[in-house]
């Protein structure tokens, strides 16, 4: 678990560097990515489906990104992008592709469908938190 915490922090921060995030935000990018990945791993270890876990983790990431963006007056995208990266189903997509190459289409299509579902879940997670954020803004205005 500790390995997961540390590596996800470093990996997300490194992505901050690759995307040239402002130097001050790199640590925060790492924090966002770390929280998202820890949520995901905890859910998966407790026998939740990967799709559900990705959805919840994406919501958490997007909510934290919105809060950070509000506090530090920077665009949301800086935090959400580096946070989302660890959740992207790269491993599944790779497995799917690998089965395609060796003519094992049945397994390949299954894996590809799952990878697609997970990407969809991440997207829906981002949207949910966006909607929540807009709702809260509107309630504040009233």
């Amino acid at each position, binding site marked *: 678990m500790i390995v997961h915490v540390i*590596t996800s922090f470093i990996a997300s921060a*490194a992505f901050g560097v690759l*995307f040239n995030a*402002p130097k001050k935000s790199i640590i925060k990018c790492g924090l966002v990515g770390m929280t998202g990945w820890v949520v995901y791993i905890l859910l998966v270890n407790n026998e939740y489906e990967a799709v559900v876990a990705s959805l919840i983790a994406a919501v958490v990431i997007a909510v934290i990104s919105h809060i950070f963006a509000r506090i530090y007056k920077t665009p949301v*995208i800086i935090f959400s*992008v580096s946070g989302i990266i660890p959740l*992207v189903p*790269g*491993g599944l997509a790779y497995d799917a592709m690998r089965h395609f*190459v060796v003519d094992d289409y049945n397994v390949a299509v299954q894996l590809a469908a799952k990878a697609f579902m997970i990407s969809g879940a991440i997207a829906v997670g981002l949207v949910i938190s966006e909607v929540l954020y807009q709702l809260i803004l509107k309630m504040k205005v009233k």
Partner: protein
Amino acid sequence: MENKFPQSIEVIELCLLAGKIMLQCGAETYRVEDTMIRIAASLGIPESHSYVTPTGIIFSIDGTEPAKFIRISERTTDLYKVTLVNGVSRKISSGELTSQQALIRLKEIQSADFTFPIYQQIIAASIASGCFLLMFLGQWADFIPALIAGGVGFTCFVYVHRILKVKFFSEFIASFVIGAIAFLFVSLGIGQELDKIIIGSVMPLVPGLLITNAVRDLMAGHLISGLSKGAEAFLTAFAIGTGVAVIIAFF
């Protein structure tokens, strides 16, 4: 009065420049449109229209001025510049910057290069690859192979892209090289699991920014931008997949 309502030509130029920088640096389409309209509004032009796609911006303000168009051909990821332009637009809204000052500031931002030095980016990419390997439950023994494969792959991507300028081909070459290095390590007995090493090292090339942007654009109603960014993300993923697939198919 003269300062408060500047020439509309100048406002158009200012908005277009801001939009151009943001779009080139990987901001979401709806944010670009929003920023341009906000800048125009705070400089005394309440009605303006902007139409942004990933490859071009059309901007017009009501009245006799003609609409202007800018073509965007090169897109990179540079979130620092997005933040800076965002800051400029905030300052224009709050009245801290006049349009002339803002224009000078934006031109400075456009010509400046804030990216981290290449070697730092390569180090970051290799460290990220190693960390991803561990996150995907790889063994510690594979840490160094993933580190090297990821670093070399990213280096290939950067330099091939400089020569060829075709993004998909450079991604293809980079993932091909990653696959080859991972295969080499495993066949030499240094690495253990070929799959885990490749997955970890490919992660720095994954189009994460494109995917998130595509979704947010689609949800904000920018269907064309969302779909075309989605297509770009898909092509990128396809290029990476093909590069690795070639290696697996051969060996």
